[in-house]
């Protein structure tokens, strides 16, 4: 790993010379991650239960908080960084995220209003009226 510049294993902290870390700073990274995740989780629960915020924006706020927390987990717990020794892992991750977004957003868009998207009128949906 130190002789050549392979990608590091996913989940391993970077072993590049400029970011080499001892155990104590490793604990610090996980602790910062935990603290940030706790803050974001607490904010999520507060946002969902408060009446101070405009109700229409709450879903969007929760989505943003969840994405932020996912980023915290990736960076502090799984050590996903912008370093050059993790390119393959990040490419695989990006492909996974693409598929996930396609499945979830695609399903929601298509199922949002099936009758509109199928362009079938109610008279065709009613099988009793067909001869």
């Amino acid at each position, binding site marked *: *790993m130190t*002789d*050549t*510049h*392979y*990608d*590091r*294993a*996913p*989940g*391993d902290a970077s072993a590049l*010379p*400029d970011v080499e870390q001892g*155990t104590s700073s*490793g*604990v610090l990274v*996980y*602790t910062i*991650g*935990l603290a940030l*995740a*706790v803050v974001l*989780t607490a904010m*999520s*629960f507060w*946002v*969902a*239960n408060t009446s101070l915020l405009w*109700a229409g924006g*709450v*879903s969007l706020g*929760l*989505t943003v*908080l*969840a994405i932020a*927390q*996912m980023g915290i*987990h*990736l960076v502090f*717990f*799984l050590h996903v960084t912008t370093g*050059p*020794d993790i*390119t*393959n*892992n990040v490419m*695989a*991750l990006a*492909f*996974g995220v693409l*598929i*996930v977004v396609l*499945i*979830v957003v*695609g*399903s*929601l868009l298509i*199922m949002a209003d099936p009758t509109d998207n199928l362009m079938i009128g109610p008279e065709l949906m009613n099988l009793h009226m067909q001869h």
Partner: protein
Amino acid sequence: MNIAVAVDDEVRYDALPSASEAGPAAKRIVVGYGFWVFLLSDIVMFAAIFAAYAVLAHATAGGPSGGQLFDQRSVAIETACLLASSYTCGLMSLAIGSRRYAVTYLAALITVVLGAAFLVLELREFAGMIAIGAGPQRSAFLSAFFTLVGCHGLHVTAGLVWLVVMMAQVAIKGFHATVERRLLCFSLFWHALDIVWVWLFTVVYLMGVLS
């Protein structure tokens, strides 16, 4: 597994031989990458179940809705358990890296206890819902709910069994390279489950209570 060297890093890496000259990558990197790809496919499976839930969330068929069923306090405790267990799992990885048996066992024990607490709370929630007639056969919403949350719960159960087996392997074989690779895969798995749970509690429990 070779990577392009960034231009501004040229000076630092010039002296290093390229990966293709050095032969195949270390087994830890290959195994870790393979498991990383498996985890991504697992998350794609979760995305499919997740999409089904999102589509069916309002199809309650006259039955109870999420707002009537979910107990936010219990969800908050479950979230805290899983997050803390992800943290102790990280500490366990560090202890494995520095070959400290006692810390590894302690961190693994706390991880198992927290994971088990999460499962107990989730099963109690399921049992409570089934007891009041809100089982998976009640409505499309509840079918999707039990599939999604139950699938995550099954993953957590598998993770707990895996961790116990790994601790037995550490006790018998010590920090053998094989055991270390398996522990790397386990910690990836456990952190990924926590990421899935972030989406679960946000969309199922918090947004479910909104509407």
